């Protein structure tokens, strides 16, 4: 079952008939949707509905899971990310990811943020310094850590670590930011900071955020897509999805009848 959505700003990322399988199990079933440029799209649905798998397909992280296969295409600015000419390494520089559980490297704060730049070949210390400051500022962390950049990243609190991971992802100047339940392991105050951040970031980046928290989706996103059992059930402007969904299943989920 497909469900397409074209309205508003031009799509940055487009899924066309994307199917992802782990061995025999189908996790994402023939999904087509557009992710608008500089918009926040939220992917919601009960656990195991395929939203995280779909997210991981967008930066080809599924390639790393043995036994994972896919059909269909994903277009980034019109170019299919699965075609042989495109190196996944380059793709992941343009499409960044923030994980559910913050996973800073056991290195200093500075080295964490600079990591992506170093592996990309940037060696100039001045450039690194400037980029580290810009990214930490964009992640709303600069003021808190500016005096202790050389300290271990593991000394930060959970919420700070997650913002560090966001800064780390931003440092390589991606065009798209994928966030897999970024605040699910955080307390309400830290969560609020992250949501504020998403709001700021969407002026520059296309953001796709997976969340199981519907209130969060409502607060944060412009467009919401509802997944169920690997299928895209419905996608539309967030306000409409929560107040007047077109599909029965969407309405049931959004009103809490299951999930």
């Amino acid at each position, binding site marked *: 079952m497909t469900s397409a959505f074209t309205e508003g700003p031009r799509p940055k990322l487009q899924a066309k008939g994307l199917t992802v399988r782990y061995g025999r199990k189908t996790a994402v079933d023939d999904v087509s949707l557009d992710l608008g440029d500089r918009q926040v799209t939220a992917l919601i649905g009960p656990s195991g509905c395929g939203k995280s798998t779909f997210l991981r397909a967008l930066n080809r992280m599924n390639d790393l899971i043995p036994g994972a296969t896919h059909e269909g295409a994903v277009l980034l600015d019109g170019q299919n990310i699965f075609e042989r000419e495109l190196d996944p390494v380059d793709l992941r520089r343009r499409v960044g990811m923030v994980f559910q559980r913050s996973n800073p*490297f056991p290195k200093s704060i500075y080295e964490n943020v600079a990591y992506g730049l170093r592996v990309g070949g940037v060696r100039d210390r001045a450039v690194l310094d400037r980029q580290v400051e810009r990214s930490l500022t964009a992640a709303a962390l600069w003021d808190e850590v500016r005096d202790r950049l050389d300290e271990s990243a593991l000394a930060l609190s959970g919420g700070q670590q997650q913002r560090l991971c966001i800064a780390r992802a931003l440092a390589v100047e991606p065009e798209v930011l994928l966030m897999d339940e970024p605040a699910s392991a955080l307390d309400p105050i830290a969560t609020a900071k992250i949501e504020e951040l998403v709001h700021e970031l969407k002026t520059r980046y296309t953001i796709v955020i997976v969340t199981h928290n519907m209130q969060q989706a409502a607060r944060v996103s412009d467009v919401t897509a509802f997944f169920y059992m690997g299928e895209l059930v419905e996608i539309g402007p967030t306000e409409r999805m929560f107040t007047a969904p077109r599909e029965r299943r969407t309405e049931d989920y959004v009103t809490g009848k299951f999930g």
Partner: protein
Amino acid sequence: MKRSRRVRDHLLVGLTAMAVVVILGMLALILFDVVRGGLGRLSWRFLTAAPEQGMTEGGIFPAIYGTAIMTLLMTVAVMPVGVTTAVYLHEYAPPGSKLAALVRIAVNNLAGVPSIVFGLFGLGFLVQFVGGGMDRLFNGGELRWGQPALIWASLTLAVLTLPVVIVSTEEALRAVPKDHRMASLALGATKSQTLWRVVLPGALPGILTGAVLAVSRGAGEVAPILFTGAAYYLPDLPHGLSGQFMHLGYHIYVLATQSPDVDATLPLLYSTVLVLLMLTFTLNLTAVAIRARTRRRAGAAAH
């Protein structure tokens, strides 16, 4: 519960506890005896002087030096190969790979090969085939490499300790959280970059443990070096890779079994044993300490 049942239970449990006591008791006995017999002669001079007067006076510095040089060479040889093999098994081999399974079987069997057979391997392959070949190619047949030598003993022990390094390194690689690898790749790093910048630095403590354990084995194993390079008394310290060397373990063996005057050399023998024991204990405790600290850190980081 019937009383006889309870009595029988207590008796049997007591027996198993006794087994532990006996084992620990033997360990204590050995330590106590070695310390008592060897402490007398232990001194700075003992550790830095050469043996004198037919092994009844002086020190065992050449044996310490020989052991140190040999284990150094062995470590330089075994670490790159062992760590890379572990990296292959854990990071590069596709799951279900038959080749990887074969490698594992081979390493497992390597660990069980008797140490004397390693000595034969050192003799048959390294000394005669490689060494003899080198003499034919470079020395015009003159005997230089085709005989027991420091280099061959070191390489023999490198092969013997290969499984130790592989197992420790694999354990260390497993301890690096998968999340870190994912994060690195998601930032646009390649697999080898991730390995070099994130995984190996994270696995360093475990890799170090492997090195320490390998050195401990190298210092203590005697059978493999009996005819690949160890000597009982050498007037000089070894100056090249092609010379023979003195070794703590070998020294103990010869002193204990072939000394012309057992009573006169006994004090030196005891002190040598004490030195070797202290060395291996320190190394093993260091390895245990590193391992314990890594486990604690891994437990804390897994949030």
